[in-house]
């Protein structure tokens, strides 16, 4: 293991301990109680040994003494079991509380992470950090709690008891057991490369399956079935070979350590029996009962060694998983709202963009020196081919991203001095990539205004031309729609999103006109809804329709993320630049 990784592990461990801090009292109790269980568990074989010593042969059995011992053992066993259960329950409690805390923390952090982080990381990756990684971490933590500590105490305790019974024989055990450690270690290091190879090949195969089956229709369309199967078989063959090695070699650990255990056992039996014979008839004889106690210790003593080496791997894995969540939680959050940030109430809709520069990555400049003055109620059309970077502008207006230079001001106040919440509340946003949450239609509609009355909701839906189709849904406004809109068509989803805005009626709008994926009738409806919405409101609209563009007060022409031209329709046509070219290819016959 390399040094930096150890350092990182230590850092992670520290964070884990921080999360454990609120539960320190319970953790301490758990540790104390498990020490008690271990001691009691270890004491039982001694008592059983004593009982056996009282069963020497016919006529040499002290039954009453045996009964006394057995009762004592019974009480101890019952007590041990109770404490054992208590310890497990406490450990469960601590683990799941910590895991809950980590998840809560992670989710809270997601709410304040800058969009730049979320956009740059695949959703699946973040979700797997919060869910799968935390789960793995929980497993490791629980295992660590229950086995690492008890394992160590058991080893020490067994050693102590063995020494107290017969130091010489204990020495045999101490000398032999590290062998099992060495063997396990040897196998682990030698199978590591096979495991790595296996997981790499497996990942390769999964990626291949993902890509090919994910696009199986294309594979079929081009008649590539045979070829795809050939490539699959090639990877599959390699996976079979390295899996066999990884699985076989790793499965040697158990038999080998078990063999070492058998050696220890035989060693104890030999030395113990010899001592028995040697001390027979002396004042302090080494009895058969003591030997049987020692033998049962010899079994118990080696077990925790194997368990601990298993737990250590598990813990390393858990730490690796934890470090991924902690990394997410440690991501710098967005710049918090300024302490004196003002609340923006009912803006009139004046927006001033002055000298704004912005780029996602410093080596690819995008917007440079953008200036734009929008009066209340004006309409700004953003025009350009698909993928020209219209979302960039939306990102800046909504303050999903902060500008690099210059400033955007609403009502004369730099938006960095306005609380994000109130700024965003003054915008209504309807994008083509609609997003609906899993829930009822009503829940989706009232996202921006949870206390809306039934009348308000219906009125908004009527205005958005959404009332008709909602009413025809199986349960009307209470129809449950799955994540991402489920059974609704693209156009219906967009109408819902419009109705959602219609309900709050914010003073400024960001709209995205439909391009192609919506049928004509729905498109006309959306257009009418947009028109109703835009009346008297400052609007930024990503425009595709000529009428929208022509009626705009300002047209922003974008290309490859840059704003190449800006002005009114006639001015731009006269300029005979990119806009004119776009216009001619699109609308002139």
């Amino acid at each position, binding site marked *: 293991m390399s040094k930096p990784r150890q350092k990182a592990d230590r850092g992670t461990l520290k964070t884990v301990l921080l999360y454990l801090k609120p539960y320190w009292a319970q953790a301490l109790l758990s540790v104390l109680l498990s020490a008690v269980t271990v001691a009691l568990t270890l004491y*039982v074989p001694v008592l059983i040994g004593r009982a056996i010593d009282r069963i*020497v*042969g*016919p*006529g040499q059995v002290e*039954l009453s003494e045996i009964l006394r011992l*057995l009762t004592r*053992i019974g009480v101890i066993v019952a007590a041990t*079991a109770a404490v054992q259960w208590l310890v*497990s*329950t406490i450990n469960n409690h601590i683990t*799941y509380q910590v895991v*809950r805390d980590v998840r809560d923390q992670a*989710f809270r952090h*997601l*709410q304040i992470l800058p969009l730049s982080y979320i956009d740059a990381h695949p*959703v699946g990756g973040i979700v797997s950090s919060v869910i799968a990684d935390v*789960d793995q971490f929980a497993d490791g933590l629980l295992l660590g709690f229950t086995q690492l500590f008890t394992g160590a105490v058991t080893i020490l305790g067994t050693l102590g008891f063995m020494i107290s019974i017969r130091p010489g024989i204990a020495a045999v055990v101490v000398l032999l057991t590290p062998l099992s450690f060495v063997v396990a270690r040897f196998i682990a290091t030698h199978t590591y490369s096979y495991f790595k190879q296996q997981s790499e090949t497996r990942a390769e195969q999964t990626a291949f399956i*993902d*890509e*090919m*089956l994910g*696009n*199986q229709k294309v594979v*079929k369309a081009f008649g*590539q*079935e045979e070829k795809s*199967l050939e490539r699959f078989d090639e990877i*599959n063959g390699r996976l*079979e070979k390295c*899996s*066999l090695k990884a699985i*076989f070699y790793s*499965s040697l650990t158990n*038999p080998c350590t*078990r063999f070492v255990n*058998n*050696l220890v056992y*035989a060693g104890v*039996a030999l030395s113990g*029996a*010899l001592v028995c014979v040697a001390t*027979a008839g002396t004042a302090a004889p080494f009895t058969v009962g003591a*030997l*049987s106690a020692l*033998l049962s210790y010899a079994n118990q003593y080696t077990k925790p060694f194997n368990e601990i080496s298993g737990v250590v791997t598990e813990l390393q894995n858990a730490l690796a998983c934890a470090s991924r969540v902690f990394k997410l939680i440690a991501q710098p959050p967005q710049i918090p709202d300024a302490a004196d940030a003002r609340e923006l109430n009912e803006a009139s809709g004046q927006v001033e963009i002055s000298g704004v520069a912005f780029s996602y990555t410093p080596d690819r400049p995008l917007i440079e020196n953008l200036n734009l003055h929008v009066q209340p109620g004006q309409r700004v059309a953003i025009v350009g*081919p*698909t993928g020209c970077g219209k979302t960039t502008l939306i990102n800046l207006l909504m303050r*999903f991203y902060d500008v690099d230079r210059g400033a955007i001001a609403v009502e004369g106040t730099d938006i960095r001095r306005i609380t994000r919440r109130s700024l965003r509340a003054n915008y209504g946003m309807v994008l083509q990539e609609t997003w609906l949450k899993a829930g009822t239609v009503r829940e989706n509609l009232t996202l921006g205004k*949870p206390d809306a009355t039934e009348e308000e909701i219906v009125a908004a839906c009527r205005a958005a031309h959404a009332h008709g189709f909602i009413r025809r849904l199986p349960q009307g406004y209470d129809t449950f729609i799955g994540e991402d809109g489920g059974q609704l068509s693209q156009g219906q989803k967009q109408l819902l999103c419009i109705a959602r805005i219609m309900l709050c009626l914010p003073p400024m709008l960001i709209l995205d006109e439909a391009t*192609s*994926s*919506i*049928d*004509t009738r*729905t498109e006309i409806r959306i257009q009418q809804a947009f028109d109703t919405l835009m009346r008297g409101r400052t609007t930024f609209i990503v425009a595709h*329709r*000529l009428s929208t563009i022509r009626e705009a007060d300002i047209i922003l022409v974008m290309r490859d993320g840059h704003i190449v031209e800006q002005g009114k329709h006639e001015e731009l046509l006269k300029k005979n630049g990119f806009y004119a070219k776009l216009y001619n*290819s699109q*609308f002139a016959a």
Partner: protein
Amino acid sequence: MRKLLIYLRDYRRESVLGPLFKLLEAGFELIVPLVVAAIIDHGIGAGDRGYILRMCLVLVALGLVGLLCSVTAQYFAAKASVGFVAKLRHALYAHIQRFSYQTLDRVGVSTLITRMTSDMNQVQTGLNLTLRLLLRSPFVVFGAMIMAFTIDSRAALWFAAAIPALSVVVFGIMLISIPLYKKVQELLDRVLGATRENLTGVRALRAFGKEESEISAFDEKNEALTAMQKRVGRISAAMNPLTYVIINLMILLLIHTGAVRVQAGIITQGAVVALYNYMSQILVELIKLANLIITITKSVACGNRIQRVLEIPAGETAQEAGAAGDAACRVQFIHAGIRYSEAGDTSLTDVNLAVRPGETVGVIGGTGSGKTTLVNLIPRFYEATEGQVLVDGQDVRSIDPSPLRQRIGIAPQKAVLFQSSIRENLRWGNGEADDDEIMRAVRDAQAADVVEAKGGLDAMIEQGGRNLSGGQRQRLTIARALVRRPDILILDDSSSALDFATDAALRKSLRELDYHPTVFIVSQRTSSIQHADQIVVLDDGRVAGVGTHAQLLADCPVYQEIHASQFRKEAAQV
């Protein structure tokens, strides 16, 4: 799961020998307490040092033979399970390759991917453990009991009591907790869903300032999960203490009985120690068995899921020929229609169309009007459930799919490219094409600048074509279709991300192709298809009109409406 076992056929020897060697190992393990008893009774009792040494060497020898048996068993188990799953994976993948579009739609791709990956791994683990342990644990449990009976039948009765009692506890707790674990999984899925939704909807949620309410909704789900986890934890935490109590209680009773029997001179002290040792062995094995059964149950469930996919009938072979059509037509639809199996309504009805070689056909209509369905009938991706679709006068259902598809080049709606070089991607169209032929197709598809910008045909395309823009991907998929110089070219809304100038240039170069393919262009824009020889207008699965642009403008209301919304009204205003 049972039907899957035929894939184990080639590993019959391994699957028998593996468990067998495991049993041998367990058998040797069972002898150990007897040897120890002998040491106590004969070695220590008689003070025979030589005997003690010999017996301890027997212990070492037992361990060594056990090790050899066990290593052999592990090897056979690993070989059989890995080989079995490799064969199964191949079989499933090959099976999926033969699925029709309809089957793919019905089963769903994400399901298939899970079956191919995580389910397979689970089956492998399960089989491996089964071969190694399933026979071993019951063997040791019952073996220990039988050995106990050979020592002393009276004392061994406690074994007969211990085994059912332990089984009730171990399997009872398992039975109670398994459904609860399922609940935990469901609750975890809800937490996962909440996280996922929060991320996919991050813009909308922040725009509405929903951060706080999202947190409280998440906390609620998370709290429910934690509570359920703790509940299950409390139940399964009872397993160890309960079994510990039972086994020790039995040991106490055993010792008491043993004491009485030794007193009566029926058994020896060593025998009591041996009985005590056997009792200890049982507990360990029963717990192993319980864990094993959980793993096996999971694996069998996964195996059943795999089997269900294998049981789905696959394959599309030529069927008996329908009536021949007009051989002079390249493509002909005669009253063709299709009803997807699960949807009640027909997706497409009564299409009549005759297309001569070299003609261009435009297909237009709203979302869900059946445009893609119509063109998918030509390569027999879906089969017409009513009427006929013919290519060169032959019913496509009577043509073997692969030579039929060889003649057709298609650029699907979703522009998909694969992780490999641009050249490899384009060669999907024609494996034999040389660089000149590929570049010609690239130029015809207006994609020369894409290839150039990426650094030539050797440039790598990342998974899913991530390093390309939507328009670049579309042009490359069109080039891929052109590489095969198809008789029939189908462009399924595959220029939607192109700007209008590029789109126009593309249409021009398609008209000038020297092999004059018959072209189907699916589009939502009248501008893309207005120069086509015929235009099919679809409305909700029905043909609303067929004709040229001018004819349709004159007499097709749906076409007029589409055109007006995109073009004329505005043109008039200019």
